[in-house]
């Protein structure tokens, strides 16, 4: 493929799930300063959008999704080269606004129909995890919304539009004390797989370098700084 | 009811209207004037489409517009039945519904309103067209619908802006007769605008002439015909109007080197002279006998008007004589030909200017 008016050799395109926004911005900067002459472009969107784009022929070198299962369609389409590697993990916590308007103490409280409770949509990774958490704890939650992504859940918690919700641990990381995190009775976690794409326009070597950087100590430090767990 | 009394002042960018209008209940005022004189503007003011800039309008005890007092009655409460110059039929309504629009607006049920409309539709011989849309009407048909619609709205006053300009000769006579009857029965004041002298002389009780935004003459049709004060009125009445200075029945015309003698010797000073075109005789040689006015001039133009031929003369400039087609042939008149003019002094009317 062609990316007009730029030098193929020095431009690396990384498609990343939107929950990695801040971490990968930092990652790109750090990588660029270590590799002068290489420009890293990060394309951020929801996992499904990224997948559509890749299937539609997007000129991407690497892709990082928020859920191992989301890679499957890409693999069956033959878009992925080599094996995927997990670069980080994340787990769910129960979050309530610091004022805790619903007086939520534990996951089992979410069965109360008078509370406003939100989790992710069933088909996105954090939604699948949420369903798993409820199942593991045997809680029949009375849900009021299934948000398209975890950031939407967090935003509504921050605004106290919701009384409680399930979010990633990383989501609590940079909100100070505006949200209260409550550990789940049974921990549920997800992993972030990274894969090389067949049609990547950039040098394979550069792509490999970036992947190595992410898995290396500098990359892992950045991820850890944003609250991600080690793979 | 005290009729319509109004002083209408409208100031536009390059046109000023300032006219007094007074119409008694049960009487018809014809508002006449050249194109662009302000007649339709006056209609707009009366109907409340534009507000007065000054003056005031009273209709039957109600003040409709008085900018000084801050009074302005909106159109729909004025109860004026208006035929607009460009009809303004409601395009998406059929003829019947256009006519029924007024009764319906007055609160009648759809059925009653349609029945009322049908009476008027019948009266104006529009029954065949009742289900047409305005865009499917000929020009004259649309005009008849507009008249019927205005009348059907049961108004307190009638305002007709050139209601018959698009009618054919035959239906014009009919509509004119209908209108005469309807106006005759109509108890409120009526204002009629028309460019057709026949309409005006037949339908109007009084005439107000507006020229360039000002009233230049008022009077009964007979008065205006006898004594036109402006060349517009003279043209309307089909008279020649000349200006000059008069001493003991001898008038020196202003613009031409012609002196005219009138049998009327009572006027002196600035004078208006009125001569009917039929009173002007043309001859190939100097006429003998009684006419005290006789001079020689040239033919400026010849227009056949059907039963008579209108001859325009060069001195006084634009003087018009009506003669028979036979006379044209006998005198072999052509534009530019020499001709002798004679007028009896008794046919020359003189008025102080």
């Amino acid at each position, binding site marked *: 493929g062609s990316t007009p008016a730029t030098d193929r050799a020095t431009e690396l395109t990384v498609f990343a799930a939107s929950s990695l926004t801040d971490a990968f911005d930092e990652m790109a900067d750090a990588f660029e300063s270590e590799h002068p002459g290489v420009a890293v472009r990060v394309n951020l969107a929801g996992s499904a959008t990224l997948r559509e784009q890749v299937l539609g022929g997007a000129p991407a070198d690497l892709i990082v999704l928020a859920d191992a299962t989301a890679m499957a369609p890409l693999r069956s389409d033959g878009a992925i080269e080599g094996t995927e590697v997990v670069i980080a993990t994340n787990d769910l916590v129960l979050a309530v606004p610091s004022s805790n308007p619903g007086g939520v103490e534990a996951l089992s409280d979410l069965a109360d129909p008078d509370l406003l409770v939100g989790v992710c949509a069933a088909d996105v990774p954090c939604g699948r995890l949420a369903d798993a958490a409820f199942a593991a704890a045997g809680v029949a939650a009375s849900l009021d919304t299934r948000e398209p992504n975890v950031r939407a859940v967090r935003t509504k918690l921050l605004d106290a*539009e919701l009384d409680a919700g399930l979010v990633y641990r990383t989501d609590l990381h940079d909100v100070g004390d505006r949200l209260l995190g409550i550990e789940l009775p049974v921990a549920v976690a997800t992993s972030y797989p990274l894969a090389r794409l067949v049609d990547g326009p950039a040098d394979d070597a550069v792509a490999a370098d970036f992947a190595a950087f992410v898995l290396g100590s500098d990359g892992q430090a950045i991820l850890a700084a944003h609250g991600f767990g080690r793979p | 009811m005290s009729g319509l009394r109004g002083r209408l002042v409208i100031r536009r960018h390059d046109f000023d209207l300032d006219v007094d209008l007074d119409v008694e209940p049960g009487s018809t005022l014809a508002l006449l004037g050249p194109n662009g004189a302000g007649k339709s503007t006056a209609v707009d003011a009366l109907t409340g489409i534009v507000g007065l800039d000054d003056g005031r309008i009273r209709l039957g005890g109600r003040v409709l517009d008085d900018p000084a007092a801050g009074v302005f009655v909106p159109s729909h409460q004025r109860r004026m039945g208006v035929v607009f110059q460009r009809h303004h039929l*409601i395009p998406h309504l059929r003829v019947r519904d256009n006519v029924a*629009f007024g009764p319906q607006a007055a609160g009648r049920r759809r059925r009653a309103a349609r029945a009322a409309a049908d009476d008027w539709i019948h009266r104006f011989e529009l029954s065949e067209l009742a289900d047409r849309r305005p865009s499917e009407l000929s020009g004259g048909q649309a005009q008849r619908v507009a008249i019927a619609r205005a009348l059907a709205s049961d108004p307190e006053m009638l305002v007709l802006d050139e209601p018959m300009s698009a009618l054919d000769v035959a239906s014009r006579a009919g509509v004119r007769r209908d209108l005469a009857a309807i106006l005759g029965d109509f108890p409120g004041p009526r204002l009629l605008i028309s460019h057709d002298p026949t309409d005006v002389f037949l339908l109007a009780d009084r005439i107000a002439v507006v020229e360039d935004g000002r009233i230049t003459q008022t009077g009964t049709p007979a008065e205006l015909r006898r004594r036109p004060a402006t060349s517009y009125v003279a043209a309307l009445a089909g008279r020649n109007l000349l200006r000059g200075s008069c001493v003991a029945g001898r008038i020196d015309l202003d613009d031409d080197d012609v002196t005219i003698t009138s049998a009327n010797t009572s006027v002196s000073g600035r004078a208006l002279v009125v001569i009917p075109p039929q009173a002007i005789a043309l001859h190939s040689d100097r006429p003998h006998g009684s006419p005290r006015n006789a001079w020689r001039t040239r033919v400026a133009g010849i227009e056949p008007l059907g039963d008579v031929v209108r001859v325009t003369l060069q001195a006084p400039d634009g003087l018009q004589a009506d003669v028979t087609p036979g006379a044209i042939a006998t005198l072999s008149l052509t534009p530019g030909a020499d001709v002798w003019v004679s007028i009896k002094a008794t046919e020359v009317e003189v008025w102080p200017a």
Partner: protein
Amino acid sequence: MSRRIGPRAPALVVVPAAIAFSLIVAPLAGLALAVPWRRLPDLLGAPIVVEALRLSLVTSLSAALICLVIGVPLAWLLARVPFPGRTLVRAVVTLPMVLPPVVGGAALLFAFGRRGVFGEPLADATGFVLPFSIWAVILANVFVALPFLIVTVEGALVSADERVEHAAASLGATPMRVITRVTLPSIGPSLRAGLLLAWARALGEFGATVTFAGNLQGRTQTLPLAVFVALESDRDAALVISLVLVVISLVLLVALRGRWWGAR
């Protein structure tokens, strides 16, 4: 009937028009090719689709109706009544169009959310919380769709012939009657266009709805939300649901042809 000779279409018109049409048709054709037709029957009966379809129709039609009822008066005021600040009002009215829908949803939360400027007093007084309800879906739809109706109708009102309205007033019609019997019928095609735009915008609305009303199957999950969710797991289902949207619109538009459009 007489042989009416329509205007001949000049090539300078036909060529760009053909381009416009292909630009619209090509992606739709691409979509139609990608849709897994044989899965259509069972997907169409799936509860997620049925419920989303019902909800989408109810909310988008209600929103369009509300837009009509409150939008036409505002368009009329903007077109006909000079008042101070009219230009500003006119500009403000178009803003929801440029606001990214997600931000529009956030703005709705700021205003009508449980902690919103107006929502908080409302919740305190009545206990009624707007978000996460069908009312929130409708409100979000109205917010994004209203400008389309207003702008379209106002544009048409400005071109309409006021003299006919004056004539109607002289026949005794109150301003209200003039509006309903003369003005609005005379801009019929534009009114229908505006309503169609508002409805379509509401039917396709995603961002503001998901942000303000949330996404719960059967309560606030409209078709576009269902599509979005399906896209995550079952792309074929997403395409089928989209197709349902397209087909419904198509059927509605073609069926209403005679009554809606150019009955001229």
